[in-house]
């Protein structure tokens, strides 16, 4: 359902004289509202409910005047959209940071095993090599990864503070959380891309573990890119 259809459905029960005023307001509000289609439709539906309630509670014989009074009480649709954009930025940054923090250790472990235990990994495939040495060897082969991790992990933690329990204790603005989500997501794209390129360039024999690592990283790269783009869009709108 597109915005026009949605607004027409939402105002269908109003007096025909009030409908154009409310529908016009909702269309302008929806056009200024960033975020996913689902999130936008939910917010537009909620605001429509509030407008209809306000019109219903307005006494007077003129439905168009009641509608005009209601939209006036809600203020500029662009200002209202900006306020909601801030809330959506915080929530999106939180989800992005949480997803990266929770998926990071697992994906890191798969890559570590894939690049240090496979048949093409040379001396490091020796089972007697300790885990810290494996990690050091991997970071030496891919020096960009530890640098990216030093950027991604703090950024993801700040992004998590965009919403939820942490947001009540850490004074992180939604704009800062959005920026952190953008940095963490973009850093993740570069990290996953580097690991995939490294695997393609150096792997002689593709072990099942390496195929798994590349598959997971490809999926995460796509999701991180989408999340980073969304954080950037919401932050710009808020």
């Amino acid at each position, binding site marked *: 359902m597109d915005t026009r259809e949605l607004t027409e459905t939402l105002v269908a029960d109003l007096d025909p004289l009030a409908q154009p005023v409310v529908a016009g307001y909702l269309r302008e509000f929806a056009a200024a509202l960033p975020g996913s289609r689902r999130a936008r439709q939910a*917010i537009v539906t909620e605001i429509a*409910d509030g407008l209809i*309630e306000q019109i219903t509670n307005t006494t007077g014989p003129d439905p168009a005047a009641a509608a005009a009074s209601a939209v006036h009480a*809600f203020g500029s649709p662009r200002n*209202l959209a900006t*306020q909601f954009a801030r*809330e959506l930025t915080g929530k999106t940054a939180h989800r992005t940071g949480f997803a990266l923090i929770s998926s990071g250790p697992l994906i890191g472990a798969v890559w570590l095993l894939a690049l240090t235990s496979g048949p093409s990994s040379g001396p490091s495939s020796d089972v007697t090599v300790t885990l810290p040495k494996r990690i050091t060897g991997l970071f030496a082969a891919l020096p960009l990864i530890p640098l990216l991790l030093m950027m991604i992990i703090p950024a993801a933690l700040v992004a998590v503070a965009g919403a939820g329990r942490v947001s009540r204790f850490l004074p992180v603005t939604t704009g800062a959380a959005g920026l952190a989500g953008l940095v963490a997501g973009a850093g993740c794209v570069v990290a996953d891309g580097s690991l995939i390129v490294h695997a393609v360039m150096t792997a002689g024999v593709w072990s099942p573990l390496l195929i798994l690592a590349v598959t997971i990283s490809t999926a995460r790269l796509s999701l991180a890119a989408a999340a980073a783009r969304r954080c950037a869009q919401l932050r710009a709108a808020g």
Partner: protein
Amino acid sequence: MRAEVLKGHLDGLLLSMLEPAPIHGYAVIESLRARSNGAFDLPTGTVYPALHRLERAGLVRGSWSTGPGRRRRVYELTSAGRTSLTEQRVSWWQFAGAVSTVMGGGGAAAWTPAN
């Protein structure tokens, strides 16, 4: 009363409106207006984003009503919201008591929470 005056207290006021029972956004505005005898007549557009902010912080939980008629988003306090409301009440009474003591010529004693 001007909206700016309420700015620092908006969260506590909204949380207290949701304390008795879950209600939708417009009912929060109406309830606030009625319980303040019309003194707190907030611009409608400020309350909806504020409710979303409280939801983002985990102090309220929003859900869509499933009954007949149009869909409505209903808000209820979470346990963190109840705790926050209690803390804000204590803070407010301490502040109000102190201001009354200073400005009211000693007419009001500072409030202390009952145990």
